[in-house]
């Protein structure tokens, strides 16, 4: 039957020519737009490495000199420091707050900044690793691991700071850092060197952590910037306070209470609270600002457009073909073909068309990405360190998955585009189909 169908399609190659060319063009177009979309979605679906729900960022500001509430008397580093400590105390003493962390300027998830460095193993044989650093200050119980709920790479347990964290040079590294430096993740107690200058002890290894929702986890280190914060004129942006409410706290109720009761009272000297942001919202705003969401939107629209073209093309082509082949459908029914059988034949034709055209489109894209060096570089910039555990960093699986998604998208749309006109045609009485010819 398939051979008969192939012969029949070959004999009708002129009638199929237009949709054939259209499918190839749309296949290539779809591949191009689906590629970044799939990568973005795959990146988004990688575990963040922390629990975003329940995390809040405290938004602080400072009265400027032109403000009526500005006080020159409070605008000293020592009073500012005292005031800021007071603000930290207020937050950590809120009954709803379970834990908090005072971060160095913009070194927290979705902050939009990148504080990088190089970490070396304790052997001349190991290469250094480019890392992203999260710095924080362990003041008044500030604990980044506990607040973000970093999970131990070996046990899966939520991590906490080592008791001697304040007194020793202890750092925590992500599992990708541990693997690259030591080839394993049970490296607590090992030595490492930051920037080849400071010797640190590894306090633990946490699961890979995503700084931004649409990025892949980057090799990361968490460490203290110092034992305490220092007074300055710009403490409100230098020291970001992130806190987590206790499990079971109603988020809406807490936010309402905070805005009604806590925020108005949270004014210390020239520093005042402007509100709180859920870290999820913050992450979304960051994705907006960095254009990550726009890439997703743009490519989704392009992909939808491509699929709409295929849909309309298939419906239109099959509409014309089915109308031209109504007599044929009548003949098939007079010879004993059931409606199901006729539908199956047309779907098979669509499947063959889509398969052949997809193979051509994939071959064209394969040649193109090969010529562009996709397979040589793994789709990454040379300075980056692709983590091969993700398919999007492996050239061959990446190419195969995008090609498969493209093929399946075309197939589904084509089948729908075929079923509508064919379904309409086979509902007619065979005599009517034969009569019109």
């Amino acid at each position, binding site marked *: 039957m398939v051979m008969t169908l192939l012969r029949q399609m070959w*004999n009708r190659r002129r009638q199929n020519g237009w949709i054939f060319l259209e499918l190839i063009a749309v296949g290539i177009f779809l591949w191009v737009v689906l590629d970044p979309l799939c990568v973005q979605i795959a990146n988004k679906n990688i575990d963040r490495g922390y629990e975003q729900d329940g995390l809040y960022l405290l938004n602080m500001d400072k009265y400027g000199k032109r403000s009526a509430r500005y006080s020159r008397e409070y605008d000293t580093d020592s009073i500012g420091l005292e005031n800021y400590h007071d603000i930290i105390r207020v937050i950590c003493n809120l009954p709803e707050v379970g834990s908090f962390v005072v971060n160095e300027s913009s070194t927290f998830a979705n902050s939009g900044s990148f504080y990088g460095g190089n970490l070396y193993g304790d052997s001349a044989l190991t290469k250094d690793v480019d890392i992203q650093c999260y710095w924080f200050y362990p003041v008044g119980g500030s604990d980044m691991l506990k607040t973000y709920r970093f999970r131990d790479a070996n046990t899966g347990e939520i991590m906490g700071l080592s008791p001697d964290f304040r007194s020793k040079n202890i750092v925590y590294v992500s599992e990708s850092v541990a693997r690259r430096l030591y080839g394993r993740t049970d490296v607590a107690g090992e030595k490492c060197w930051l920037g080849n200058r400071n010797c640190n002890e590894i306090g633990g290894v946490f699961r890979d952590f995503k700084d931004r929702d649409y990025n892949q986890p980057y090799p990361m280190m968490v460490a203290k910037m110092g034992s305490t914060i220092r007074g300055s004129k710009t403490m409100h942006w230098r020291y970001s306070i992130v806190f987590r409410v206790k499990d079971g706290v109603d988020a809406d109720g807490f936010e309402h209470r905070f805005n009604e009761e806590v925020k108005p009272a949270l004014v210390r000297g020239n520093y005042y609270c402007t509100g709180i942001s859920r870290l999820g919202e913050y992450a979304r705003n960051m994705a907006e600002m960095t254009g990550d969401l726009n890439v997703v939107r743009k490519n989704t629209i392009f992909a939808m457009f491509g699929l709409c073209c295929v849909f309309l093309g298939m419906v239109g082509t099959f509409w014309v073909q089915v109308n031209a082949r109504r007599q*044929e459908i009548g003949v098939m029914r*007079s*010879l*004993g073909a059931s409606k199901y059988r006729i539908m199956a034949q047309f779907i098979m034709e669509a499947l063959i068309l889509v398969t052949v055209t997809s193979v051509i489109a994939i071959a064209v894209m394969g040649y193109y990405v090969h010529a562009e060096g996709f397979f040589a570089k793994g789709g990454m910039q040379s300075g980056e360190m692709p983590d091969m555990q993700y398919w999007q960093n492996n050239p061959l699986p990446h190419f195969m998955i995008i090609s498969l998604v493209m093929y399946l998208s075309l197939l589904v749309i084509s089948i729908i585009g075929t079923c509508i006109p064919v379904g309409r045609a086979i509902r007619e009485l065979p005599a009517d189909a034969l009569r019109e*010819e």
Partner: protein
Amino acid sequence: MEKIIKLNGINKVYRTNEIETQALENVNLEVGKGEFVSIMGPSGCGKSTLLNIIGLLDAPSSGKIEINGDEIGTHMSDRALARFRNQTLGFVFQSFHLIPSLNVMDNVQLPLVYRGVSHRESVERARIVLERVGLSHRMRHIPSQLSGGQCQRVAIARAIIGNPEIILTDEPTGNLDSKMGAEVMDILHELNRNDGRTIVMVTHNEEQARQTDRIVRFFDGRQVC
């Protein structure tokens, strides 16, 4: 003679928003097994409509159709209707209705393909019927490469490949010259005489009709004799 086709009170009305046309009015017809019946009448008298109703290609507005003692019609599922058409009926149309993108062999095999017969067997049986209609040398040709007479012989081969008991043929010689028409009629007579197939033929040709066992005449949707 055992009756293979029984039509009882068949009416067919075509309705549009504006007009209602009675194509068939209270048709009662019986056809015996192995009989060769001609249906004659002026254009538009309902001959082809009747043939389509017998062949389950069209549905009557009212009335009962029995074939081989079983009542058939729209109460049957699509699959059952398809199976019935495939196994009991063979059609030969005036304009051949071959599938233009299939070659002769593929066209002739179609009823067996729909029946689920193996490829090898359907090829073998197609060869036999094509030899029988004298077209074994044209198996790989497509319909556009054949003459009208050859196309009609292919259509006959397609109609008989599944060994149906009844062949329904709608002006089989209408598009053929007299020589080719005679050849086609010879084949139909042979199928009737030698194989015992029941044939119901719609025709305008009085001479061809006289060669059959019985003539049924229609006028304005009514059976007049």
